[in-house]
C-alpha cells in the first residue's frame, strides 16, 4: 500500500534543489530570505522519505534508471537512477530529518542574528541537502561520485559562508582540497569499476559487487593481477574518497578547521551529509568490500586508530565546537571499524544514532554560541544551565549518548560496534588491536564529553556574558527537543544485547537490514560473503552470553570511568585547567600531533620542490628542444628572405638562372651532352 511513494522518490532530492534555485534567484524577496522555502522543501523530502521507508518496511524495493546520458552498445552505459532498498530508505529519512531540523534551527541562528548573505546560505543548504539525498539513492557508482563531488562543493560554499574573514575562506579551501585529494583516487576507482565490470550498478545479480564475486570464483585475472588483488586495488582506490570525506586518518585535518562555518552547517556536515557520505559509500558497496579481506583489515585498522587518535585531541580543546569536531572524527572511526570487522548493521546503527546525537550536540552548541554572543571558548562559559534549561537538558542527553552511557542511543550502537569487533577480533589479531584502540577511545570519549558539559553548563559563570546570556528562540529549542528525545530512545531500534541475553525479538534494525529483497544488498547476504570471501570467523569468550556481558561491562565500565574521572576533575565551581599539567603531551595534543605542520611540509617542502624540479626540467629540456628546433627555422628564414630584394630585375635574373639550371639539369639527365 505504500509502494506508490516510489514514483515520487526523485522528488526527495528535487524538492531541496528547487528551494536552492528559489533561494538563489529570488532569495532576497522570499519570506525569511529563503528559509521557508528550504523548510518546506526538506519537510516534503522528510515526508516522502518516511513514505518510502514505510514502503520498504512493508517489503517493497525499487530500482529504476531515470536517465541514460551515454548509451553504448559494446562497452558500458552511463546512467542516473534510483535504488531504494533498506539502506538507502533508512538513510534518506536520517538525512532529510537532519536537513529539515537544521533549516528550522537556522531561522534562529542566522535570521534572528541578522547575518549577511542569507539567500546564499539557504541556497547552499538546499543544494547540500539535494546532493546528499541524491547521493544516498544513487543506484550506481558513477552517479554516487557525481553527487559526492557536489556535496564537497557545497561544503566549500557553506564553510566559507563568512568568506570576508580569512579564516573561514582558508578553512573552506582546505576542506575542498583535502577531500578532493581523496576523491582523485575515488574517480580512478570509478573508472576502474566501469572498465573492469562494464557496469557500476550497486545492486542485483548484475551489479558490480556480484560480478566481482563471480570473477573471483572463476579465477579470472585483470591487467595481470588476480581477481582478488584487482578487487582489493579498486577497493583501496574508492576508499581514498571515503577517507577524505569521512575525515579518517590521515585526511582528517580539514574537519576541525571546517568549524569556521556557521554552526547549523557544522551540524549538517557532521551528522548527516558530508562526513556520513564516506561511510555510507562503503556500506552501499559493502558486497564489494567483503570480497577483499586486505581492504577490510585496512578499513578496520584505520577506523580503530582514528577513533582513539582523534579522541585524544578532543581532550585538550578549549572551544566547544573543536571538541565536537574531534568527537565526530572519532565516532566515524567507530563506524569504519565496524565496517572493517564485517558488521554492516552495527556500522549503520552507529551512523544513525551518531547522526541524531551529533546533530543535537552541534545545534546545542549553536544555541550556546548564540547565548554567548558568538564566543566559543568553554573557559569563558560556566553556569549556563541556570539560564538555558532546555538547551542544557537536551545537550546533556546528546553528551551522554556520545559518551556511551546506558541507556542513551550511543550506548547501544557503540556497544554493538565493539561487540561485533570483539568476536571477530578473537580470531583475527589485527582486528583485536583495532578493537583495543576503540575500547580505549571509549574512556577518552566519555572524559572529554563530560569535561565539555561541565565546563559549559556547570560551575560558576566565568564571564559577564555567561552570567546573563542572550535568550534563544523557539526555532532553536524545537529542533533540540526533537533530537533530544530521539537521542534518548533511538537505541531501542536495535537492542541486540537484550535479544542475545533474553531471546526477545527486539533487534528491529538487524531484521530490517537482514531481510532478502532480491537485490543482494541485505545483511544476510553480507554475512555469507564475509564467511566465504573475507574468511572472518567469530570467536567467543567461554560462551556467547558471557562474551556479550563482558563486552557490555568493558564498554560501559570504561565510559563510566571516563565520565567519573572528568566529573572529579572539573566539578568545582571554578575548575582548574588540568590538561595543562600533561606538559609536553599537552603541547603535542594542542598542536594536533603536528598533522597540519607535516602536511604543509609535504605540500611545500616536498611537492613544491618536486614541482619546481619538474618545471626546470620542462623549461630547460623539453621546451629547450622545441625552442632549438624553432630557432634553426627562424635563423635560416631570416637569412633566406633577403633574396626578396624588391628589385624586379633581380627577380627576372633569378627566373632566368632557374630556367638555365633546369635546362642544364634536364640536359645532363636526358643525356644531351
Amino acid at each position, binding site marked *: 500500500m505504500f509502494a506508490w511513494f516510489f514514483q515520487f522518490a526523485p522528488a526527495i532530492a528535487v524538492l531541496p534543489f528547487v528551494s536552492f534555485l528559489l533561494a538563489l534567484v529570488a532569495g532576497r524577496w522570499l519570506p525569511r530570505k529563503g528559509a521557508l522555502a528550504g523548510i518546506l522543501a526538506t519537510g516534503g523530502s522528510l515526508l516522502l522519505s518516511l513514505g518510502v521507508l514505510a514502503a520498504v518496511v512493508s517489503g517493497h524495493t525499487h530500482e529504476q534508471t531515470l536517465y541514460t546520458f551515454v548509451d553504448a552498445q559494446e562497452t558500458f552505459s552511463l546512467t542516473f537512477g534510483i535504488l531504494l532498498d533498506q539502506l538507502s530508505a533508512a538513510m534518506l529519512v536520517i538525512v532529510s530529518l537532519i536537513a529539515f531540523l537544521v533549516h528550522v534551527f537556522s531561522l534562529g541562528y542566522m535570521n534572528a542574528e541578522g547575518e549577511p548573505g542569507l539567500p546564499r546560505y539557504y541556497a547552499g543548504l538546499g543544494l547540500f541537502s539535494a546532493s546528499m539525498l541524491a547521493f544516498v539513492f544513487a543506484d550506481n557508482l558513477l552517479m554516487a561520485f557525481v553527487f559526492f563531488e557536489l556535496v564537497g562543493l557545497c561544503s566549500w560554499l557553506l564553510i566559507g559562508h563568512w568568506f570576508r574573514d580569512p579564516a573561514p575562506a582558508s578553512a573552506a579551501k582546505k576542506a575542498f582540497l583535502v577531500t578532493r585529494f581523496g576523491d582523485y583516487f575515488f574517480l580512478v576507482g570509478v573508472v576502474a569499476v566501469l572498465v573492469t565490470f562494464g557496469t557500476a550498478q550497486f545492486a542485483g545479480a548484475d551489479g558490480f559487487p556480484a560480478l566481482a564475486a563471480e570473477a573471483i570464483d572463476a579465477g579470472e585475472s585483470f591487467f595481470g593481477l588476480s581477481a582478488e588483488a584487482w578487487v582489493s586495488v579498486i577497493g583501496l582506490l574508492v576508499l581514498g574518497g571515503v577517507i577524505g570525506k569521512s575525515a579518517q586518518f590521515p585526511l582528517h585535518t580539514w574537519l576541525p578547521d571546517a568549524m569556521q562555518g556557521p554552526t547549523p552547517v557544522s551540524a549538517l556536515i557532521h551528522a548527516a551529509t558530508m562526513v556520513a557520505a564516506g561511510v555510507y559509500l562503503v556500506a552501499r558497496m559493502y558486497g564489494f568490500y567483503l570480497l577483499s579481506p586486505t581492504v577490510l583489515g585496512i578499513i578496520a585498522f584505520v577506523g580503530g586508530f582514528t577513533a582513539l587518535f582523534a579522541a585524544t585531541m578532543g581532550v585538550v580543546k578549549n572551544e566547544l565546537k573543536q571538541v565536537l569536531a574531534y568527537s565526530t572524527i572519532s565516532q566515524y572511526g567507530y563506524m569504519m571499524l565496524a565496517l572493517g570487522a564485517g558488521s554492516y548493521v552495527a556500522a549503520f546503527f552507529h551512523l544513525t544514532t551518531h547522526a541524531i546525537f551529533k546533530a543535537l550536540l552541534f545545534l546545542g552548541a549553536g544555541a550556546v554560541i548564540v547565548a554567548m554572543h558568538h564566543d566559543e571558548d568553554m573557559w569563558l562559559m560556566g553556569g549556563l544551565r541556570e539560564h538555558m534549561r532546555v538547551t542544557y537538558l537536551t545537550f546533556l542527553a546528546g553528551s551522554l549518548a556520545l559518551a556511551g552511557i546506558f541507556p542513551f542511543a550511543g550506548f547501544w550502537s557503540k556497544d554493538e560496534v565493539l561487540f561485533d569487533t570483539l568476536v571477530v577480533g578473537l580470531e583475527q589479531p589485527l582486528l583485536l588491536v583495532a578493537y583495543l584502540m576503540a575500547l580505549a577511545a571509549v574512556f577518552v570519549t566519555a572524559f572529554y564529553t563530560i569535561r565539555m558539559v561541565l565546563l559549559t553548563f556547570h560551575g560558576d559563570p566565568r564571564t559577564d556574558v555567561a552570567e546573563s546570556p542572550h535568550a534563544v528562540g523557539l526555532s532553536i529549542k524545537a529542533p533540540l527537543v526533537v533530537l533530544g528525545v530521539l537521542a534518548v530512545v533511538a537505541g531501542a531500534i536495535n537492542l541486540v544485547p537484550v535479544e542475545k541475553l533474553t531471546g526477545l525479538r527486539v533487534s528491529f534494525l538487524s531484521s530490517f537490514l537482514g531481510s532478502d529483497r532480491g537485490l543482494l544488498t541485505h545483511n544476510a547476504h553480507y554475512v555469507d560473503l564475509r564467511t566465504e570471501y573475507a574468511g572472518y570467523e567469530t570467536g567467543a569468550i567461554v560462551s556467547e552470553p558471557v562474551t556479550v556481558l563482558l563486552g557490555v561491562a568493558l564498554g560501559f565500565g570504561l565510559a563510566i570511568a571516563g565520565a567519573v574521572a572528568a566529573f572529579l576533575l572539573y566539578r568545582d565551581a571554578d575548575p582548574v585547567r588540568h590538561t595543562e599539567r600533561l606538559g609536553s603531551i599537552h603541547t603535542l595534543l594542542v598542536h594536533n600531533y603536528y598533522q597540519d605542520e607535516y602536511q604543509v611540509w609535504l605540500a611545500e617542502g616536498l611537492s613544491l620542490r618536486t614541482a619546481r624540479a619538474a618545471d626546470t626540467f620542462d623549461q630547460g629540456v623539453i621546451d629547450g628542444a622545441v625552442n632549438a628546433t624553432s630557432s634553426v627555422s627562424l635563423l635560416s628564414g631570416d637569412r633566406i*628572405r*633577403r633574396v*626578396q*630584394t*624588391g*628589385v*624586379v*630585375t633581380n627577380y*627576372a*635574373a633569378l627566373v*632566368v638562372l632557374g630556367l638555365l639550371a633546369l635546362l642544364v639539369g634536364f640536359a645532363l639527365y636526358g643525356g644531351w651532352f
Partner: protein
Amino acid sequence: MLEAVPVEYYLVLSAAVFCIGLFGVLTRRNALMFLMSVELMLNAANINLVAFALYWGELTGQVFVLFTMSLAAAEVAIGIGIILVLYRNYDDVDVTDATTMRW
C-alpha cells in the same frame, strides 16, 4: 616559287631576338624599355610558332600567334597602366626605385 629558307635560320633569328629581349629585361632600368624587351621576347616566340607552322605545313601555329598577339596587346595595356602608377608614386619610371615590397 622561292627556295624555302631552312627552319634553322628562323630558330637562330628567334633565339637572337629572345636574347636581346632578355638582355633588355636584365639590364634596363627604364620601365618602358622593360616593356619593349618583353614584347621582343614574345615576338621571338611568335617567330618560332610561325616557322614551325610553315615547316609542318599546318595552320595551328599561325592561329596560336594570333592569340599571342592579342595577349601581348592586353599585356601592354596592363603594363602601361602599371608604369603610370609607378610614375605617380615614385615620380620616375625606374624599376629599381620601387623596392618597397620586400622583406
